């Protein structure tokens, strides 16, 4: 899904024109954060699980080449066809070629943020191939011709009335129908036909086990299984960072993933795929698309530990009040803001600034990525690479100059306060984005330093 060039602040401003909707979005995601809290507090060992997962991922990233080669060898031995894609374009062409070689022009696809990152649906559509997303939320945003706004809850920005309208228009449900059960049943009947007729199914990969060459796909709807088991060709697309060394490590990651995501103890379906069924094909595409570059950025490499649970989005007070689309990137929220600049720094230069650096994201992260510290570090990189607005550069230089000189600082402080007291309109006007919706602090006649000189020296 192509997006326009508005930055996060402008999009967030649009989102905030409907305050009731912002309240609803915030409360909905906060409810999920609370479900997460309840669920993790049932495990006294929660913090140890996070630490263990973080360390396993550290090992995996530090020895990625070896684990990837082991995975490849084991997968091939299991009868799986393994492909390597250096970038999004290569990934898309590999998928296309597999489909072409079987003469397939319709495919069913379960949730894969990687294919969103690679814009696979657009690519295949341009090449005459129809893709239907089978995750309910993804199907809804696909019908709305929108990208997902959240990696786990793709249509969390849509109210049930809007979904009813979409289903009425596209799937023939009754006009005005908003009962979630009726709407879900409509989607089930629609998707059942899709599952039964598509010869190829693409799924994502949550975990790929180097030791065994198997991969695990987690869904709540069973849609990955329905697609993969009924199709002749199963294509699984994964970023190279999805590797874990050993099968037993799943006992940690599967416990962390869904508790963090929705507060469930585990996904309804955690399906292991290892060997193609007789007469069928199974393909795995290992995709780099910037991950090696990120691995080489010492300050940012552990962003690759991410297991895509979405907890950082649910807890983020900015995400909850700006909506996923405001991040204009396949992956929204705090984690998206530290991944996206690696892919295209200029286009995503605004994202690391779309945060108050409150740090809640780092605390909920099940693999302990230091998200808010990385946001700070990306800001430094982005400014050094020259992507800061000119006005901001000037303001910062002026501020640094003032604050480096005690005399100038005292003078500017006194002058500023005097102006504010004698001519409040100088700061209290609509050109000042603080004053639009907030009053200015009252300017006292005396600074603390002035008081101190009179009273203590």
């Amino acid at each position: 899904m192509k997006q326009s060039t508005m930055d996060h602040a402008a999009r967030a401003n649009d989102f905030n024109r409907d305050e009731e909707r912002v309240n609803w979005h915030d409360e909905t995601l906060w409810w999920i954060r609370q479900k997460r809290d309840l669920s993790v507090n049932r495990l006294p060992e929660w913090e140890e699980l996070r630490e263990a997962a973080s360390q396993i991922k550290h090992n995996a990233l530090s020895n990625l080449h070896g684990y990837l080669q082991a995975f490849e060898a084991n997968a091939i031995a299991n009868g799986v066809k393994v492909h390597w894609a250096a970038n999004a374009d290569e990934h898309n062409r590999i998928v296309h070629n597999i489909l072409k070689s079987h003469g397939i022009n319709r495919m069913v696809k379960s949730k894969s943020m990687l294919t969103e990152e690679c814009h696979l649906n657009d690519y295949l559509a341009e090449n005459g191939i129809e893709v239907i997303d089978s995750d309910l939320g993804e199907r809804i945003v696909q019908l709305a011709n929108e990208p997902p706004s959240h990696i786990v809850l793709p249509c969390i920005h849509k109210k049930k009335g809007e979904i009813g309208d979409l289903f009425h228009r596209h799937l023939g449900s009754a006009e005005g129908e908003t009962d979630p059960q009726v709407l879900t049943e409509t989607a089930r009947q629609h998707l059942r036909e899709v599952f039964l007729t598509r010869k190829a199914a693409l799924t994502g990969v949550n975990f790929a086990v180097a030791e065994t060459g198997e991969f695990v796909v987690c869904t709540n709807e069973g849609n990955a299984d329905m697609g993969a088991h009924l199709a002749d060709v199963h294509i699984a697309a994964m970023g190279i960072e999805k590797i874990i060394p050993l099968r037993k490590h799943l006992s940690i990651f599967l416990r962390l993933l869904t508790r963090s995501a929705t507060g469930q103890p585990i996904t309804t379906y955690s399906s292991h795929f290892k060997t193609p069924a007789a007469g069928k094909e199974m393909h795995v595409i290992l995709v780099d698309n910037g991950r090696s570059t990120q691995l080489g950025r010492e300050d940012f490499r552990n962003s690759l530990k991410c297991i895509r649970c979405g907890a950082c989005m649910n807890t983020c007070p900015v995400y909850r009040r700006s909506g996923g689309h405001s991040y204009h990137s396949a992956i929204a929220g705090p984690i998206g803001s530290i991944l996206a600049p690696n892919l295209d720094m200029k286009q995503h230069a605004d994202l690391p600034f779309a945060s108050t650096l409150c740090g809640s994201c780092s605390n909920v992260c099940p693999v302990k990525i230091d998200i808010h510290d990385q946001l700070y570090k990306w800001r430094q990189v982005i400014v050094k690479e020259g992507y800061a607005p000119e006005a901001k550069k000037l303001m910062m230089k002026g501020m640094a100059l003032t604050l480096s000189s005690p005399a100038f600082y005292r003078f500017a402080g006194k002058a500023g306060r005097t102006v504010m007291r004698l001519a409040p309109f100088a700061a209290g006007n609509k050109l000042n984005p603080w004053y639009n919706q907030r009053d200015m602090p009252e300017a006292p006649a005396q600074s603390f330093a002035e008081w101190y000189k009179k009273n203590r020296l």
Partner: protein
Amino acid sequence: MRIGLFIPCYVDQFYPKAAIATLQLLEKLGLDVDFPLRQTCCGQPMANSGFEHLTGGCNELFVDNFAAFDYIVCPSGSCTLHIKQHLHSHKNEAAATAIRGKVYELVEFLTDIIKVKHLEASFPHKVGLHQSCHGQRGLHLSQMTELVAAPYSKPMQLLNMVKGINMVPLKRADECCGFGGTFCVTEEAVSVKMGKDRVEDHVVAGAEYITAADLSCLMHMEGILRRQNSPVKVIHIAQILNAAL
């Protein structure tokens, strides 16, 4: 024990009462406090905006002003955290390193270093405690709701020593107020909405005052409260701890 009082620039200029309360509180506890007059700012406004490379001047000034003290105490968790994490010096890195280890936010200085057991303070009002993010998640002034860990709160430990105070419970114990430095103007819409929501939580809980260990959050919430013509006021925690009948 010689204590250097570090008053953040915006507190010096806009909230001298909080700075005076901090000084008086430390003096009441019999401490030897000095306020170096050539201090300005910790450099955080530039650094958080991506311009850490422009903070050299602030850093050198800070080291010059504070290297000689045994402790540096500051009534702001955010500015304290910035110094702890980012203070460096071309001229005297050893002094900068020492400062990073001996700079304390006021509350943690009182609970952890002075180990204050009682205070002669009285504040017979309903008060909501705002957990400022940098003090909480950066300096660990209080336990964080995201973690599975035993609860504690250094600000509450002190506020509980104040006579007559009535702390009100909040729906969201540690959500950010949306100030965020330059974020408050570059992301005006979200910043204001976060501020309105935070203020609302305190108002619904019946607070007459909102207090915090950081005035930047309080300044933000005050801006919103005053625009709403709300009778609810903001007050720095030092002013409550220093309040006498």
